[in-house]
């Protein structure tokens, strides 16, 4: 029989779960449950919808199981006992039919939403897309604006209501890039590019991060996405242009070696920059292609030329002295 202790531990867990579920909502700040763009918003509705439909199959278990257990407990008199009963055609049809039907409905929705919210699909918005090239480094993200001749670390500024077309790679191990309030994640991999399209529909700051474990600095690899109106965005671009340091080979060497964003900030930033961002001007607008292309020369790449390795850190430190 259920002892008192066990009952109280069960009750405790039940209460906790209930308490957690009704906890106030700002908990979901910076996630797609408080979306700041259409894609994240659609993803949230899809989550709720899928949960709802699947519940049709789940709830009968929660309802019927206790009833069966209560009614057919051994020793309870009056309940029917049918030990040979092992098949019923109508029941079979229901058991297979209901999940089949639900999965059919879910599949249709899955098909549509997967195509509609494909991260590779360009988004329609006011004005042409802003191109951003994203480079994952250990342990920070570099954002290159090739058309504007600037780059930044720790801060991704985007104009509101204007699509942003991102191309991603890394210059170290694999990472996964996400700005949850705007859209889902996509892997960034060395020597390869992936794509992600996002658009913010409100002004605000939303945290973004890497979700793929990549070493000691992993948890610190976060940045702020700042969605601003067009005028502010232009102002930001001007500021970065005037206050940014040149992202030349030496600066890239400092940035790319294994270090936290704060360490890189110390090494590279000037007083004019915010404490959580590094701004760059871009002497070489082909930087991104060089980063991707360096792994495709057909020749082995010495470790000292591969950011993220100990050898690279040593080599760049030596060069700096």
């Amino acid at each position, binding site marked *: 029989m259920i002892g008192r202790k066990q009952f109280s*531990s069960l009750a405790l867990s039940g209460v906790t779960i209930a308490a957690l579920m009704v906890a106030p909502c700002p908990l979901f700040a910076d996630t797609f449950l408080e979306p700041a763009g259409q894609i994240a918003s659609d993803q949230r509705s899809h989550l709720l919808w899928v949960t709802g439909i699947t519940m049709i199959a789940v709830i009968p278990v929660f309802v019927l199981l206790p009833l069966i257990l209560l009614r057919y407990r051994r020793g309870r008199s009056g309940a029917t006992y049918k030990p040979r009963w092992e098949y019923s055609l109508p029941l079979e049809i229901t058991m297979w039919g209901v999940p089949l039907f639900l999965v059919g409905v879910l599949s249709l*929705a899955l098909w549509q939403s997967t195509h509609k919210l494909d991260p590779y699909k360009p988004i329609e918005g006011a004005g042409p897309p802003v191109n951003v090239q994203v480079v994952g480094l250990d342990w920070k993200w570099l954002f290159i604006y090739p058309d504007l001749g600037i780059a930044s670390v720790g801060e991704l500024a985007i104009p509101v209501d204007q699509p942003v077309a991102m191309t991603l790679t890394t210059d170290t191990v694999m990472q996964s890039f996400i700005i949850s309030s705007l859209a889902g994640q996509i892997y960034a991999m*060395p020597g390869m590019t992936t794509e992600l399209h996002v658009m913010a529909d409100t002004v605000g700051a939303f945290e973004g991060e890497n979700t793929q474990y990549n070493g000691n600095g992993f948890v610190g690899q976060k940045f702020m996405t700042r969605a601003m109106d067009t005028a502010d965005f232009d102002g930001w671009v001007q500021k970065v242009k005037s206050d940014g340091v040149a992202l030349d080979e030496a600066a890239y060497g400092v940035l790319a070696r294994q270090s936290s964003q704060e360490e890189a900030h110390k090494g590279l930033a000037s007083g004019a920059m915010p404490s959580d961002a590094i701004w760059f001007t871009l002497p070489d607008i082909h930087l991104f292609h060089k980063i991707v292309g360096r792994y495709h020369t057909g020749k082995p790449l010495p470790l000292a030329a591969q950011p993220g390795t100990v050898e690279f850190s040593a080599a760049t430190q030596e060069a700096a002295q």
Partner: protein
Amino acid sequence: MTYQDIFGRLTLDALPFTAFIRAPSVNEAVASTAASIVVVGALTVLFLLTRYRLWGPLWRDWLTSTDHKKIGIMYIVFSLVMMTRGVIEGVVMRTQQAFGLDGGFLQPDHFAQLFSTHGTIMIFFVAMPFVAGFINYVMPLQIGARDVAFPVMNQISLGLTVASGVMLMVSLVVGKFSTGGWSAYPPYTGAAFNPGVGPDYWIWAIVVSGLGTTLSGINFATTIYKMRAPGMTFFRMPLFTWTVVCSSILMVFALPPLSVAALLLGLDRYLDFHFFTNDLGGNMMNYANLFWLFGHPEVYLLVLPAYGMFSEVFATYSAKRLYGYTSLVIATMSIAVLSFTVWLHHFFTMGQSALINAAFGIATMLIAIPTGVKVYDWMATMYRGRIRISVPMIYGIGFLVLFVIGGLTGVILANPTIDYQVHNSLFLVAHFHNVLIPGVLFGLLAGYNYWFPKAFGFRLNERLGRRSAFLWIAGFSLTFFPLYFVGLMGMPRRSFSYTDPAFVPYMIVAVLGAFCIFSALITILVQLKVSIKERDQNRVPIGDPWDARTLEWSIPAPPPEYNFALLPQVRERDEFAMAKIEGRAYAAEGDYEDIEVPKNTPIGFVLCVLSGVWMFALVWWIWWLAALATALIILAVILWTFDIDNEHVIPAADVRKAHEAWLEQIRLTKPVDRDHEADPSNQGLAKTELEG
């Protein structure tokens, strides 16, 4: 000769004690304590074995045994030892995260080793050997066989698995384990980014235990195809045996991709190949595909036998036929087949086209159909039964309620659009623990309480069994439901710390749950101890303490070496239940014959030791030792092939004598009804309440 020639890259720095002495800190203290526990534990075992002069019996009765029942038990003992370590690691990680706001007490690197060993241990050295142990023990009994098809190969499989598990223990003391997670994705685990020994420990442990598991799969499948008792057609097999068929197929086809992936990674690391490096055309996407081509079938490999155990438990404790046998068989088979078609859902976010993601997403959701059918079938099995809520049933009920939630979140994750958001988050971690703990582990623990009396001849303590079942259910719920929410709040998996104070309350609930799980595990060990002490009051020599249905219950507990004195003639499904109903159980007549059983052989143990040495030598680049171990392995196998006198005969007269003694005992035993199931009066002879 230089130092390197002799010791490779092994130096004193490899011991955690060295680091602790140089720079004491909590982090190093945790590492040193863990290492000490391993060392002290090993020494204690050696000491006790010597003290009580157990080396002889251990060697004769266990290490060299080819009896599938003993091998099964050794698998399970090994798995419980590893589970203790795995659970402790889980508790340490939960504690770290409970204090993880802006810090905690562990270094990130140490935390990474913890999640990597925890995952590797729990999947490969807890769940797999636990499942393999049950299959070994139960399946031959269920099909009325006297052994598995290849008893020596069975012993070798065990040896390889244990040697690999020991490597994980060694890595605690000598050097460091990988920080690349249980899936060990390159390029992070490649030589460029992780030149240390960690990934090498992972690679060899996976390759060697993977070989063991592949051989097991071949063994189990062959046993079922070839060694069923007369009359046991496929559609008369118990459902557990059916799930073993599927699971064995998965072992045979799913493990090779893993071994290949690990070996290719090994070639990159040892011989400067470029399968998964960043340069020279290496591509880690190939690794992801190979790994999950194994990884997804793997989870079904584990859960299908658990489904099988629950099927037996629900039928027995409802005193009723399993509802929808054919449906369940079809569902099991479909799951096994479909499980090979969905691996891509582990990386929807790798940049493939929407078309491909949608196709794999739909394939993934299809699995929910047969899974749902199974859940309804189990409920229909209880419907109009006479349900006894004993320990295995508590696990079963906990399983049904919690597992559907895991299925729900699985369906959620199968939608690429949602997965884009919650992939790599604690939501995912909660999902797979939600299916692995209530699904696989509860199944195994139900099976443990259910089949224990068969294996050892006495029942486990019922009260402690219940307590532990409730602790598992409560502990699981407290630990993992909060993680769903923290995942939705955006916390990535594998984070040793975080900056959002909103996570803290959830993390505290989770750590309480983790301690609850830990006490559940302790309760199981206490239950074992108490039950051994009280064994004389709980003996069930006749062998059928639960009024059960399948053949394994028709023989004494513990069963004789040859299992069945007389091979059963199977006339229908649930043969033993029908025999009891029709009053033809425990028949005496029959032709006794000489029974050949395989002799003991040390080959499995020898290969276990040698493969352990081989792995250690490779990890530490001690090439001469690796070469020597390779040569000795080949030599041992060749020598073993000369041992052709490898069976001994148990004369028919002995078999008859033992069997008739047991039948005599049955005549003297009072059958008990189900009200006295947990009573000392239950000696394993059921006054059957089954009705036909």
